[in-house]
């Protein structure tokens, strides 16, 4: 099982999903994020899915859940870089991913979070 690395930059946790993840890895990522949020004072999470070609209902729901989970630690999660084909497919599936915010790319995601919060 592959573990997705989590980077901490300032007060934001960065996750970049580069490979085709199987279900266990996604669940593990959720747990790792919760651990990190609890351990650090991170107030934001950016999940970059630019390289992700397929998001089905399970993975979609897991990603949306990270939003709710992060809010428990008073942090906001932004999902960035969704591919048009993936967005169209999720829409067809009826998944709006309401639990999590979205942005076109990491830069805009950071703007949504109000910068890396070093100041």
């Amino acid at each position, binding site marked *: 099982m592959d573990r997705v690395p989590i980077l901490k930059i300032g007060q934001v946790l960065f996750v970049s999903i580069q490979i085709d993840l199987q279900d266990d890895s996604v669940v593990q990522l959720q747990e790792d994020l919760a651990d990190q949020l609890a351990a650090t004072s991170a107030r934001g999470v950016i999940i970059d899915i630019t390289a992700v070609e397929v998001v089905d209902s399970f993975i979609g729901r897991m990603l949306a859940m990270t939003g709710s989970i992060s809010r428990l630690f008073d942090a906001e999660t932004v999902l960035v870089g969704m591919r*048009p084909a993936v967005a*169209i497919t999720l829409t067809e599936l009826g998944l*709006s991913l309401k639990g999590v915010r*979205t942005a076109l790319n990491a830069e805009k*995601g950071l703007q949504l979070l109000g910068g890396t919060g070093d100041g």
Partner: protein
Amino acid sequence: METHSDLQRMAAYLREQADELLKRWADLVLTGSRGLTSADDVRRELDDLLHLVLRSMTDADELAGGELRAALAELSRSRARSGYSPSETALAVFALKDAVHEFVADAAELVPEFLAFSRMIDDLGLHTFETYAAAREEIIADQAEAMLELSTPVVRLWDGIIAVPLIGTLDSARTQLVMEKLLDALLATGADHAVIDVTGVPTVDTEVAQHLLKTVMAARLLGAECTICGIRPQIAHTIVSLGIEFGDITTKATLADALAYALSRAGLKIGPV
């Protein structure tokens, strides 16, 4: 098989006079045509076809027959593209029957053979017509697709604000295209606001509303907010009585209103110089 031996005998009889037959066939075809193809090209086409016809009548296997149908289909398709009418192409095939009839007019003993031949030609003529129709259908489908593409422009109104003026009915095929173009444009321009103008959409019923909602949903997944504008007063009543709700999607009357709204969300406003 009766028919096959009839055809073989006919083929043998025709082969002896192949050259004169070809000449007569070509003359009949050229008289009836509008001169869209040169006489030499026509003769060459017919020569090839006559060979295939005779072979398919003689051979025991289906190979020559298949080749013949393929050759006729190709001829029909290229004629369709060159602007010939379907009758002209089919008549060229039937003209062979006329030419052969002239040759066997006095040979009473060849009646059954001629009947078999006649039926074969009828079948080939129909095949030509069908291929022609199919080719035209394909051209129409291609044109429809091109028109769809043309009627779905995406324009940049300002930094970070794009507009999609929809013209015509919004069915599911159109919605797919709109979603693709909108999302690609969001990616290309980095826009975070899209205005969908439905002034050109004749009716907004529950189905159209669902398509619009889907489009907004998809844009939101790419971090963009959408505003729908152009809802005409006449259809406002219909929308409300159908119970259609746009939920948290802002709707404005005009494109100007939508632009002002999008600008205000970006922290901008238009004022005098």
